[in-house]
């Protein structure tokens, strides 16, 4: 699987209702050691009810200025949520199906991303 197979694909829940599009894919560096770093484990999908347009990185990274742009992008992507990869039932035919009991999480990135 390459990432293009996931990005911008429509997401449906167990009833077949479309709930949005994959706008990003979240990894966590806690997989088995692979060379110099831990392997990035596929943690979940970020699903936006609206389009697959780029965030320009706004909503999740906590950047709040220029205020007008930050608000506009936040508004464009209101209702975005994170689903864990374990809650994904299947990926096929350009479609992502979620499990019936999937849980939605806040998409906000937490602390550890800015370490350099």
């Amino acid at each position: 699987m390459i990432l293009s197979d996931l990005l911008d694909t429509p997401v449906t829940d167990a009833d077949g209702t479309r709930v949005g599009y994959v706008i990003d894919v979240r990894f966590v560096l806690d997989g088995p050691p692979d060379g110099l770093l831990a392997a990035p484990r596929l943690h979940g999908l970020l699903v936006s009810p609206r389009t697959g347009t780029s965030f320009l990185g706004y909503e999740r990274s906590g950047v709040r200025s220029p205020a007008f742009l930050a608000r506009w992008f936040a508004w464009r992507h209101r209702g975005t949520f994170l689903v864990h990869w374990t809650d994904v039932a299947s990926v096929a035919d350009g479609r992502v199906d979620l499990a019936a009991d999937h849980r939605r999480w806040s998409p906000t990135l937490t602390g550890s991303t800015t370490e350099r």
Partner: protein
Amino acid sequence: MKRLLGVALGVLTAIGGFLDIGDLVTNAVVGSRFGLSLAWVVVVGVVGICLFAQMSGRVAAVSGRATFEIIRERLGPRAAGANLAASFLINVLTLTAEVGGIALALQLASSVEPRLWVPVAALAVWFVLWRVKFSIMENVTGLVGLTLVVFAVALFKLGPDWGDLAQQAMTLAPTSTETWPTYWYYAIALFGAAMTPYEVFFFSSGAVEEKWTAKDVGQSRLNVLIGFPFGGVLSIAIAACAAVVFLPQAIEVDSLSQIVLPVALAGGKLALAVVIVGIVAATFGAALETSLSSGYTLAQFLGWSWGKFRRPTQAARFHLTMIVALLIGVAILMTSVDPVKVTEFSVVFSAIALPLTYLPILVVANDPEYMGKHVNGRATNALAMVYLVIILVASLAAIPLMIATGAGS
């Protein structure tokens, strides 16, 4: 003392490097047709390029990432690819105009047909790109380009009616023989001439070439904030010379040979020689910058090794791109196209493509992951938002105005 010298050199090269064929032609054409009634656009453009260059230079110095890497990273391959196609095209168009400008200036000095000068000029540009160190290239063309100050001297020696010029500058409307759409069309052309995207690609990549760090942000800001406004003053002086000499006689400027006549009128043969040297330096410097920018944009989009601080073999595709861009420019000029016309189009297309370059830089200049504590301040952001609107409006209005006015004819 050495530091002061460094500051002075930076400011002087920023002044000398500000003007290119686009500024020369557009300002003279506008001066001859609209007097100084569009001088305010130069002011708007200069503040804009200060803001834009300063942001992109700061991003490059602090994060080490040049403008087109950021455009690709933020906009993704499709939008950035469209931006690349547009920027590359405009770059090559501007490069063509600059090489043509060198040839026209050499024609003024020699009476030899410009088409014979084009290959010579292109070869000289390539040789400098191939062999000369970045800082030497920048400083020499910048300092020699300073001789364009002769336009300001000429204006004084022409002894114009200053009250009348001031009156023109205060009248924000077309002269009686021109229409509003043409007025706005040339406003956009002037704006595009002052805020060409290649300057930003060059400025940010140059910061990486010269290995700037966060410590150099202050110096870079000084270069921009002092150098560019002085460059803007020279732009207005060119327009004023044309307004004084050509406007009363209803002379329509459409060639480089006309642009130098007011200088000869005011200062004789010596001034004429100085202005020709200045034009050669300015167009040569800009030809270098646009060639480099075509290499920078493509290399940064695709992640290739780039930069003049490397040997050509260590940035092979980057150097190949510049060679190809130069060859395309030469081929276009060999069709006998008028470089002045190419220039007039390139500045308008610059204005059209500007938003796609401006927005990602503005966003990243606010991102602490890139910028740490050097993110934009509130005042910068307030001004940047005003310019985002101006840039968008200019970009959207350019094509309808171009069609409505028959490209200003």
